[in-house]
């Protein structure tokens, strides 16, 4: 157990150093949600969104999870390059814990995207967002959990494919429907019944609902319960799958 922890710290440090060397990597993921915040957010301020609080309390939770969704899903690209340099194999041949090989990476990712989420919220506050501090913190917690889940799955998929050309289209094909069906931009409750029902099949929907509740100060709701359960289950499943792939990857 303690070796898993120290191995995880070691792998985390290696990838954190790599991130700190690249200003581009530190800030790049924030661009898309930031553009939505600046140029899409103001369109919603006068619209009836059918929910409590201001339009910012509806939109910003969606943008945070959008940041996590797109940022984490593309994490696998980096490991394809590493794999082609033989770095993954070189690490797998050492006694280092397989769980640590995954966790060290995804914890770096979680920290990076929570940092970007904080920046995004600061801009949102300047634009008019008002929300309780506890709600904001809960939102960052969901960002971290979602990143751990999706980055784990992204690394697992990346270790299975041979080239970035195979990886990109698959991720695109999965992230776009995930964004649209989870109601990241506008609450699904605004839509027709069939779309609302369909969106309940998308796990991300439950996280969005939970963060929106947190942003209006409602912490003991059914949405929150389902959100936490789905986020934790997804993370446990994804880390298990990811660790298995690091154990077996024939790549």
């Amino acid at each position, binding site marked *: 157990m303690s*070796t898993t922890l120290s*191995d995880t710290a*070691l792998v985390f440090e*290696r990838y954190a*150093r*790599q991130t700190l*060397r690249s200003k581009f990597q530190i800030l790049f993921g924030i661009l898309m949600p930031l553009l939505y915040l600046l140029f899409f957010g103001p369109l919603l301020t006068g619209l009836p969104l059918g929910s409590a609080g201001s339009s910012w309390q509806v939109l910003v939770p969606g943008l945070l999870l959008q940041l996590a969704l797109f940022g984490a899903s593309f994490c696998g690209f980096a490991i394809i390059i*590493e794999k*082609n*340099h*033989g*770095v993954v*194999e*070189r*690490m*797998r*041949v*050492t*006694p*280092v814990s397989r769980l640590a090989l995954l966790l060290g990476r995804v914890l770096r990712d979680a920290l990076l995207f929570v940092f970007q989420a904080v920046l995004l919220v600061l801009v949102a506050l300047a634009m008019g967002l008002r929300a309780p501090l506890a709600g904001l913190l809960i939102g960052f917690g969901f960002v971290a959990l979602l990143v751990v889940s999706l980055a784990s799955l992204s690394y697992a998929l990346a270790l299975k494919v041979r080239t970035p050309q195979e990886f990109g289209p698959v991720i695109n094909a999965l992230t776009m429907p995930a964004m649209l069906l989870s109601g990241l931009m506008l609450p699904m409750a605004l839509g027709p019944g069939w779309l609302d029902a369909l969106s309940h099949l998308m796990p991300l929907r439950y996280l969005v609902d939970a963060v929106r509740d947190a942003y209006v100060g409602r912490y003991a709701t059914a949405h929150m319960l389902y959100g936490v359960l789905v986020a934790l289950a997804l993370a446990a499943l994804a880390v298990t799958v990811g660790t298995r792939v690091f154990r*077996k990857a*024939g790549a």
Partner: protein
Amino acid sequence: MPAITASGLSRTFQTKRGPVEAVRSVDLTAEHGEILGLLGPNGAGKTTTLRMLTTLLPPTGGTATVAGCDLARDPAGVRRRTGYVAQSGGVDPTVSVREELVTQGRLYRLGRSEAVARARELAADLGLEGLLDRKTAALSGGQRRRLDLAMGLIHRPEVLFLDEPTTGLDPGRRADLWDLVRRIRDEHGTTVVLTTHYLDEADALADRLVVIDHGVVVAEGPPAALKERYAGSAAASLQDAFLALTGRSPAAEKPAPLSV
């Protein structure tokens, strides 16, 4: 007990076009302090054998012990006691030589100060001092290969596996690397297992050869004995012995397909 024993080691890959037997059945032993060469044409199963012995690939049949540990029951023990240098090396081009060596030492569970000291010691020993703060991308081919070796030696392994160690090096650098591998064995008693399809390398470097073709061992013995047995005389070239054994030359490429 020998440093390595393998018996009936095999690996079948399941592909869409049916099973492919990359390694059918390999039996081999390596004594402590021996330099053992796995020789064979491209696709013979050398690298797959090496990947099984280093725990990267689980065998589908057979048993092996490496450095006193059972491959199937104690892969972690095998990993602790062996080093592996892949054909592609395995360093990140954006990371410095020092950082890669220290991280590698820590992955082998050396303490931080121990890993730092060991990195310095290996750099001095392998002619990398002065390069420690360079990015690995800035190294020449020969320097890169010496760094790859240092990465595999950081934890003083009992057994060192080298996959095609001199591919891509010029003749002078190749001879330097052979000297280095011999010196590591002489000074530390390290058992070295290397794959190659260069006959001069097999002849010059290995104490004993295991010739693999179509996933099975077709011959084994010291280079001179193979030449005598399969090419008629110890003065014959290993090339003649190899041709007699496999019916083709070791680096033979498949004929280029007709273009249309």
